[in-house]
């Protein structure tokens, strides 16, 4: 177990190097010139050239690349024109807000998705099942930004119950969490329903009932434990999706996280900043995958 963790951690720098290389190539290939953007819309060619020189964009490509990689090793992401320097501190100060949002979305997913799935499976074909399945379809069909806008229109503008923007307290967490988690709740609900129904047909369940165990005990002690493996996989993989979804949701709710910063960086064409945030997303994704793998081994004895 320990060797697995160490091995995976050792692979992270290699992956990051690959990502940096790909990003570097992409940003050099796409149309649009960083110096032009920094100099501003009304800048003359001479002004743009001065800026290009100041940003070091007039050096040979491999020098720029080597500069990037070596800087990264020292924790220097490069010169961000937006922040006039290394943007790493500015990125890191945004991380807690994104982590808070992602964590609460996962919590909500587990707290709402699993019970809903069990409910639907135990009342299969009856109205709770129909309600849950209908809800699943609805949540999967609704894009998160639209759901967010509707929530805001209802709970902030019309009813005035929840704050519309920013991270101002526990109440401000509600709408972004729901908007971000909605799709994942639906996915998990559907998965739990299917898995539980599947497991209920298996021999060990019949044995459990034959032993005279009550339904809740069978369900929670035996069925759910076996159903947990695919659920952890899905939640784990989808956490990466949550990081992506946070970009949209954070922008919508003016949430001070890295997703919102990423959109700002793209708008300002600050390649250094975009690259830094992307690396952070990649590292986050790799760490989550590692965590899922560890969890996996804990709940599934066959993998130990």
């Amino acid at each position, binding site marked *: 177990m320990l060797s697995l963790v160490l091995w995976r951690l050792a692979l992270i720098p290699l992956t990051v190097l690959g990502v940096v290389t790909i990003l570097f190539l992409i940003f050099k290939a*796409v*149309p*649009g*010139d960083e110096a*032009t*953007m*920094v*100099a*501003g*819309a*009304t*800048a*003359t*060619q*001479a*002004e743009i050239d*001065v*800026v290009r020189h*100041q940003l070091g964009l007039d050096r040979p490509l491999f020098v720029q690349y080597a500069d990037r990689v070596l800087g990264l090793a020292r924790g220097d992401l490069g010169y961000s*024109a*937006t*922040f*006039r*320097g290394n943007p790493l501190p*500015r990125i890191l*100060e945004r991380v807690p807000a994104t982590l808070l949002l992602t964590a609460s979305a996962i919590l909500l997913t587990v707290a709402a998705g699993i019970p809903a799935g069990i409910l639907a499976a135990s009342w299969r074909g009856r109205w709770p099942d129909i309600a849950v399945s209908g809800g699943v379809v609805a949540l999967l069909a609704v894009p998160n930004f639209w759901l967010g*806008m509707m929530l*805001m*229109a209802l709970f*902030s*503008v019309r*009813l*005035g*119950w*929840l*704050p*519309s*923007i*920013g991270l*101002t*307290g526990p*109440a401000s967490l509600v709408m972004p969490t729901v908007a971000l988690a909605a799709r994942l709740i639906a996915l998990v609900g559907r998965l739990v329903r299917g898995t539980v129904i599947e497991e209920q047909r298996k021999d060990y369940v019949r044995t459990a009932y034959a032993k005279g165990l009550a339904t809740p005990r069978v369900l929670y002690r035996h069925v759910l434990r076996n159903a947990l493996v695919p659920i952890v996989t899905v939640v784990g993989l989808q956490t990466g999706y949550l990081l992506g979804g946070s970009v949209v949701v954070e*922008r*919508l*709710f*003016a949430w*001070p996280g890295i997703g*919102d*910063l990423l*959109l*700002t960086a*793209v708008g*300002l*064409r600050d390649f250094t900043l975009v690259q830094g945030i992307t690396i952070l997303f990649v590292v986050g994704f790799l760490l989550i995958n590692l965590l899922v793998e560890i969890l996996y081994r804990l709940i599934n004895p066959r993998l130990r």
Partner: protein
Amino acid sequence: MDLTMKRRTALSLLAAAPATSALRAFAQGTVGAGLTYGMSTGVVTLDPVHGSYTGYPGGSEAALCVYDGLLTFAPDMKIVPQLAESWSMADDLKSCTLKLRGGARFHDGTPVDPAAVKLNIERLMDKQRNPTNRPLWDPVAGVETPDGNTIILRLSQPFPQLANSLAHVSGALVSPAAIEKYGDTGIAKNPVGAGPYRVVSFDPGQQLVLEAFDGYWGGKAKTTKLTLKTIADPSTRIAALRTSAADIVDSVPVALTAQLKQDPEVTLIATPGLRPIGFVINLTRPDLSDLRVRQALNLAVPVETIANKVFFGHARAPDSPLAFNTEGYASVAKLVHDPAKAKALLVSAGFTSDKPLELAMFVSQGLFPGDVSVGEIVANALTQVGVKVEITKIEAGSYWDAMRQDQANIKWDIAMFGFNPANASGLYHLASLFKSNKDDTARPDVWNLGRYRNAEVDRLLAEIGAEPDRAKAAADMAKAQALIWNEDPYIWLQINENVSAVRKAVTGVEVWPVLFTNVRHAAA
């Protein structure tokens, strides 16, 4: 069962009633704690040099609260004194004498004296420190400080728009002591000016918290605490305004103005901008060098429909190459929509249905207001008079690059473009767009993208720059505008309004034609 359900519902409703009012109070907790401006673009850096304020127009709007300059603009773009009490240009337009207002201080207590002004102007003059806004500062050659409240600016050439440069947001004065303390680049994060508000806390890109500066020379601001908060999403900005999370918002999408007008708690503030939008015509193409063809293109476009249907009346068709509020603007002629005449002109120029005029159109995506919709309407209108149009839509980030090519690489016949003269000077605007390029085959010197060339216009623009008689200069400006307008180097389209919105109780918010929502006088 039925009964218990009912009882439960009733109970939960009872329990919920105080809870919801508590929630409501919590949600609106920001009310009474000063004013909040929800801005579309974030404030990231606040140094007038080193690339000026990042994030346009947000950075400039924050600068208007924190900094004062020697001169400034009134909401109608008239130039008025600020830290300078008076200013006068020499008759040869090659120097300017300014008298400082006595007793003004920066937020750190440093007096605003000629030495402070000299240091600031010299920072602006330095090309390495200040690579942007060069046309504004290049003509300044030196600063002299003969006594305790006089500053003489020496100019390398006659430069009547010096006042526009000094009033421009980049002409803000920074405390010399703060530059000493935080370093030449550190001021961007630790701005210390002589404006009505001083900085309490600054989270670049997120929010800037300001409080009224007790020692402001013009008297303490009416609002004690002013928060500038980034809310990038337009519908979120509107929601924030309607829930009082923001008291002022900028950049209201015109499609949402009708809905906002219904809200009795909200007031809209709309001001026509300084940026006329149009399609610049590639005059290096022989077909398009024929004036009849360019006239036909202009006659074909339903400009009134665009203003009213795409922009819901928050736009107007121009009647001069300059926008209505630009300094030196003179009306030339109203645009006419006459497709029949357009067809006839095209036929007389030799284009028929067998041999139609073919045009490659470049349109940006998300750079100009409603750019794609407007592009499609124009393409459709041109098609109706028999022109074949091929639209290429280009992502905003790479649009400038696609436009500013040398002649061999111009891939467009008509391309959407609009120029915003940030110093409100009409001469600067005309010279940037219509002064002949040194070499039409190279990249354009400034923004003469279509390679317009008219010796008479060049002569007039040069003369206006050196003309001491302002009446004569104004007459020449009008002449230049008429010459350009009648040659149709653009398909002229619209001048958009900048629309902001405030809570009913908020007063003093100005929306400047240069796109700035100025909140320095905001009060509630």
